[in-house]
């Protein structure tokens, strides 16, 4: 079964990395996976879409995802500028970096700031969001941690694993 996920983030938040880490984790779970960054030419700070596909069969398509099974939103503010339904399949679900809002939510910014995952003023929420998404997408925490450890090194790997773990356990259904 092919699952298609769209990540909405601001540049610098690490949406692309999150997709990549999750794809790698899925592979470690013996699935096929694909992470596509939708690069606009915008500079840092603007809205970035990243796509993630996970399947038990080879993934052959390379186009962008227009209607996702899951939309993952890396900043609450994004909700103000986009209409999530435009990105979502009927019956698709949303995950938002927030205390409230979305079908699922997780305060990834808080996790990031607590762990001092901040760069140029931005909390880097990618691993926390990845943790939350892994849970929703049935990716094993174990594989996710491995993927994070292959992506980051030393101290950074540790903190990011920490962030992912935290989010993995803390992500919850939202009742808006």
């Amino acid at each position, binding site marked *: 079964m092919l699952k298609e996920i769209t990540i909405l983030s601001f540049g610098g938040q690490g949406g692309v990395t999150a997709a990549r880490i999750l794809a790698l984790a899925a592979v470690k779970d013996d699935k096929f996976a694909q992470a596509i960054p939708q*690069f606009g030419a915008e500079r840092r700070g603007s809205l970035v879409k990243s796509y993630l596909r996970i399947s038990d069969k080879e993934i052959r398509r390379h186009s962008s995802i227009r209607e996702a099974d899951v939309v993952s939103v890396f900043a609450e503010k994004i909700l103000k500028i986009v209409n999530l339904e435009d990105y979502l399949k009927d019956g698709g679900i949303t995950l938002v970096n927030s205390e409230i809002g979305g079908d699922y939510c997780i305060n990834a910014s808080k996790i990031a700031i607590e762990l001092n995952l901040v760069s140029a003023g931005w909390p880097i929420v990618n691993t926390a969001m990845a943790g939350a998404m892994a849970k929703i997408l049935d990716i094993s925490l174990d594989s996710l941690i491995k993927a994070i450890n292959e992506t980051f090194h030393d101290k950074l790997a540790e903190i990011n694993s920490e962030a992912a773990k935290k989010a993995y356990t803390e992500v919850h259904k939202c009742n808006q």
Partner: protein
Amino acid sequence: MKTIMTGNQAVAEAVKLSRTEVIAAYPITPQTVIVEKLAEMVDSGELDAEFIRVESEHSALASVYGSAVAGKRSFTATSSHGLLYMYEMVWWVANARVPLVMAVVTRTIGPPWNIHTDHTDILTMRDSGWIISMAENVQEAFDLTLQGFKISEELNLPFTAGMDAFQLSHTSEVVEILDQETADSFLPERRQCYVFGEENTTIGSLAPNECTAKLRKDTFETMLKADKTIDKVSKEYEEITGRNCGLIEEYRIDDAEYAVVMMGAWSGDAKDAIDELRKEGIPIGLLKLRYIRPIPQKRIEKVLEGREILVLDRDCSMGLGGIIGTELKSFMDDITNVIAGIGGVDVGVNELTKLFRKFSEDKLKDEVIFLEVI
């Protein structure tokens, strides 16, 4: 080793495994990561090679021309405006019969500025004597690059490994990377028809016209026979890896009444679209071109014979048609040629399903059709 990797990374890996000795390249989105990755490998000692940080693409290809003609396995990579900027060298290298490999990440030519894929850029090379391949996915980008060195060195023709901007260059996918030992067993020591610097001879002097003609004829004929070399090399590669990277790929075409011909990353979407239509009972299949040069006419004819043919081009020759469409039409009849996805316009499974269905309903007129969006 199975992992995930972007197309750009996979190409860099292939270059490393090929024991490339000299690399020169200039950054351009979406090829940049290849350059960065190789710079890093060289800097860290992971790859024992010279990295020349040139100031332009003309110099990038000029530098690897220099190192390749002097006997070293060499690599560069570019895209779009970069390819056009080195265009003089593109012809020079082919006419000089110097083997080397270049990755071309296909990107739209401006203005307006646009960094997304279409195939018009790489097709500007098609007359020049380069072997031109085009990957469908990251795995093929890796495989073709690696095989490129062998093919290039056997034919004494430069080799291009093409892949679509972003859809492959920046997409992380599952890919199987060879270990160094296996790569070594596949790829022999470099050879080439002459090496500069060993004898007191002069290369490329002004020559009587007949010399030029003789050389061009030889290239022409080498290209005509190049399919055999590619067959051989891809078979050797298949024996090692189990993966075939031959000139063409056939997908559900054996019993197809309708045949689609295309190349590049969207061929994957086309396969999914074909599966959809097959479910509906529509007898449709795909002929994917992995190479544009050489173009295996006989083989294509044989595969397509008796079927309705749609050639889908992500490129165009102004006022004529799709480039692949035109070339196929030159040796086959009754081809419908659709141009789409220009400027990186997103064409996915849905759009292709729609288009192919229309084709199977004979609703596309037998002409060139230029679609802004499908």
